[in-house]
C-alpha cells in the first residue's frame, strides 16, 4: 500500500460545493436511517466527536500551537487558527461568562449550510451539529459542552455556538497501575 509523499503544511484545495453537498447527503441519509430529529442530532454529534479526536492531531501537526494556558487562549486558537484552517472562516468570540468558563462563537456564514433550507417536518434538526461534536472531540483533553443557541437555518440572524468548559482531563496511568 503506497502513499503519496507528505504534502507538508499546505491545505489541499477542494471544491466547497463538493464539501457542502457531501455534508448534505450525510445529513439526508441520517434522516432516512433514524426517522426522528433527536436521534439524527445525536449521531451527528457522535460522528463529529470521532472526527474531532483525529482532527486535533492534524491541527497540532500543522499549526505548531502549544498547550493553551487558559480557556481564553483556547477560544482564540479555535476561532482564529482552527476555524480558519479547516473551514476558511473566522468566527468572532463574544459573551464571556464572568467566571471565564463560557463563551460564544458567532459565525456570520456557515459553509455547511450553503444551499440549505430546513423543511417544516425537521424543525428540531440541528443541521450543523457535527460541528459541536468536532469541537468536543478536538478538545478531548478537557470536557466541554458545545451547543447551537442560534441558527440561521431557523431564521436567526447569525449562527451562534455556545462553548462551556467543564473540567480538564488529566493523562491516565495504564489500567491497573493505580
Amino acid at each position, binding site marked *: *500500500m503506497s*502513499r503519496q509523499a*507528505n504534502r507538508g503544511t499546505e491545505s489541499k484545495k477542494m471544491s466547497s460545493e463538493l464539501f457542502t453537498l457531501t455534508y448534505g447527503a450525510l445529513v439526508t441519509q441520517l434522516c432516512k436511517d433514524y426517522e426522528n430529529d433527536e436521534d439524527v442530532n445525536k449521531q451527528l454529534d457522535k460522528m463529529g466527536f470521532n472526527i474531532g*479526536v*483525529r482532527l*486535533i*492531531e*492534524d491541527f*497540532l*501537526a*500543522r499549526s505548531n*500551537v*502549544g*498547550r*493553551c494556558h487558559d480557556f481564553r487562549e483556547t477560544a482564540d486558537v479555535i476561532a482564529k487558527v482552527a476555524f480558519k484552517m479547516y473551514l476558511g472562516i473566522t468566527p468572532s468570540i463574544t459573551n464571556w461568562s464572568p467566571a471565564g468558563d463560557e463563551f460564544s462563537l458567532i459565525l456570520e456564514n456557515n459553509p455547511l449550510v450553503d444551499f440549505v433550507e430546513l423543511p417544516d417536518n425537521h424543525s428540531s434538526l440541528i443541521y450543523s451539529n457535527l460541528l459541536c461534536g468536532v469541537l468536543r472531540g478536538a478538545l*478531548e*483533553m478537557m470536557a466541554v459542552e458545545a451547543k447551537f443557541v442560534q441558527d440561521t437555518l431557523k431564521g436567526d440572524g447569525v449562527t451562534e455556538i455556545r462553548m462551556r468548559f467543564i473540567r480538564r482531563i488529566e*493523562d*491516565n*496511568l*495504564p489500567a491497573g*497501575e493505580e
Partner: protein
Amino acid sequence: MTVHNLYLFDRNGVCLHYSEWHRKKQAGIPKEEEYKLMYGMLFSIRSFVSKMSPLDIRYKLHYYETPTGIKVVMNTDLGVGPIRDVLHHIYSALYVELVVKNPLCPLGQTVQSELFRSRLDSYVRSLPFFSARAG
C-alpha cells in the same frame, strides 16, 4: 553515534508502537511490562522535571509530547544533540499522516500499519546521527 530504540505512547499510557535498532541489552522482562515501566517512569519524570534539573544518565532519552498527550520517546547515545525537529517529524509526518488520518487505523491501541512501521524505520535509518555501527 546511533539510535537504540523508540517508544510511541498515547495519553492513556497505551504503547502505540515500539521499534529498536541497536540495543545492547534486553530488559529480561516481557515487552508489555517494559512498556508499562517506561510509561510509569515518564509519568514520574514529568513531575520531577518541573522542580529540578535532569539526572545525568548513560544514554540520552529524548522526549516530545503534544498537547493531546501523544509522547514520542527516543533513546540514543550521548553523542546526539537536541532532536526536537526529528521527534516532531515522527509525530506529524508519520503518526498523524499515516495513522491518525487513516480512518481504518483505530486509535488508542497498538498501530498495526506496516506502512507506518517501515516508513518510521526508513526515516530513523536516514538520520544523520544514525550509524549502522553502534557506539
